[in-house]
């Protein structure tokens, strides 16, 4: 879990315009089931799996992608685009 300070430095470095969020108490990760346990040299650690999740305006989960494929945001992006199209067409 990166701290807000580390995130701020990263955001500045790569010049991004969206918020980077920190789950310092790992509460959200647990609730979403994406905090995983790992054993490294007989010590246990917990960190998050990579995941892309799209939640619509009504708070309903519309897309979940976990693991290595979630490094690529394109699937989640197309879900967002479709959602936006549907909502603006109404």
């Amino acid at each position, binding site marked *: 879990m990166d701290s*807000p300070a580390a995130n701020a430095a990263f955001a500045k470095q790569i010049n991004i315009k969206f918020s980077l969020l920190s789950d310092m108490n790992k*509460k959200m990760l647990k609730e979403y089931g994406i905090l995983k346990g790992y054993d490294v040299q007989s010590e246990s650690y917990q960190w998050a799996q*990579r995941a892309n*999740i799209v939640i619509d*305006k009504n*708070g*309903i*989960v519309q897309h979940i992608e976990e693991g290595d494929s979630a490094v690529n945001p394109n699937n989640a992006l197309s879900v967002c685009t479709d959602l*936006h199209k549907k909502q603006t067409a109404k």
Partner: protein
Amino acid sequence: MNRILAAALLLAAVPSSAVFTANTQQADQVAKVSLKVGDAAPDFTLLSDQWKTVKLSDFKGKKNVFLAVYVLAFTGG
């Protein structure tokens, strides 16, 4: 008669084993909740890189939310 009793016992066994599973899941809370498409997303409060709290419920009725959980963002991996 024996067959009927066996069926009844089996039925009786189902609720208790379900309780047992629920208990074991409670003991190990890590990564047991898996969200599915169509579920209501649990609200969360997270700290932004500007040290402001951001809640999922802030966006309800306003915006769609794209969450990218990206561990080890600073690394090349």
